[in-house]
């Protein structure tokens, strides 16, 4: 059973995005719920393709807000960790901020992966 961890997410960017683009914000989380439903039914990450769920490399995935008419392009960045079935919520942003958002999210993935390796 997959569960969510949001400790790595910067709340200020989520607050800001929700304030400016609430419909898109809600749509991203609804799409996240769809992905979790698919994963909880036994599908594996990388074993399926969905338009709004795309790999950005290094284990990072983005979830789009698609489905909302006349909307701003918003992306929710997540790191699905298959071994422990944890969906890490990392960051959120628009198309304009995607470069920084991706870099920030990848840094967070390194941080998440780091201590785990040390434990091994």
């Amino acid at each position: 059973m997959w569960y969510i961890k949001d400790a790595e997410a910067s709340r200020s960017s989520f607050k800001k995005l929700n304030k400016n683009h609430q419909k898109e914000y809600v749509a991203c989380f609804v799409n996240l719920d769809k992905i979790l439903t698919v994963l909880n039914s036994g599908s594996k990450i990388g074993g399926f393709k969905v338009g709004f769920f795309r790999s950005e490399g290094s284990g990072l995935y983005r979830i789009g807000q698609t489905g909302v008419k006349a909307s701003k392009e918003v992306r929710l960045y997540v790191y699905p960790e298959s071994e422990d079935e944890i969906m890490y919520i990392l960051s959120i942003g628009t198309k304009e901020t995607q470069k920084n958002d991706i870099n920030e999210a990848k840094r967070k993935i390194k941080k998440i992966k780091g201590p785990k390796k040390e434990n091994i």
Partner: protein
Amino acid sequence: MRKQPKSVAETAAYLAGNETIKGQVEHEIQRSRMVTTLLQLRIQKGKTQKQVADYMGCDPSKISKLEAGNDLQLKWMDILGYLSALGVSINILFEDHSLPAAGRIKQHVFAIHNLLEKLAGLAQQVCDDTKIVDKIHQFYGEVLFNFLGTFGDSYKKLLPFVKFDESELSESSSLPKVSKKQVKAKSTSEVNFAHRA
């Protein structure tokens, strides 16, 4: 320290610092149940968006849009086409909430009956496979046992309501065959199976 978030909606609300978001996300998730089921089926069947689109004679972007949207944006023909591409048929249960409780129970009993009939049909198709037939046989026994138990419990809960609505039930045009005697009946079978004759 913050507790583990229990749902996507809870996470969305926490990160936004806005409790009302939880309700909005939950509402939208509810309105996307059909879409989520369709997506889940496609992935379980190992079909790509392109394969479904080819079958439906449309562009894959349409499938992508459909899967990212909610149930209100779905079109009936698209649902049928999508499911057909997956080799899945659709069953619809119409539930009339204006019916009294006894009438609604009747609807559910018939729905269960129809499903059991389908199960019998499936069993006929695999009658050479003794293992499956044995399992189905076992399942029927379990269903009957559980059904009677659940039916009895439901009837106990229903009883005060039925007594309260007795006059309405006997006069109701939606349940013309229900007599006062049937409504008063102590036995569950008298009330609910009377209509099947």
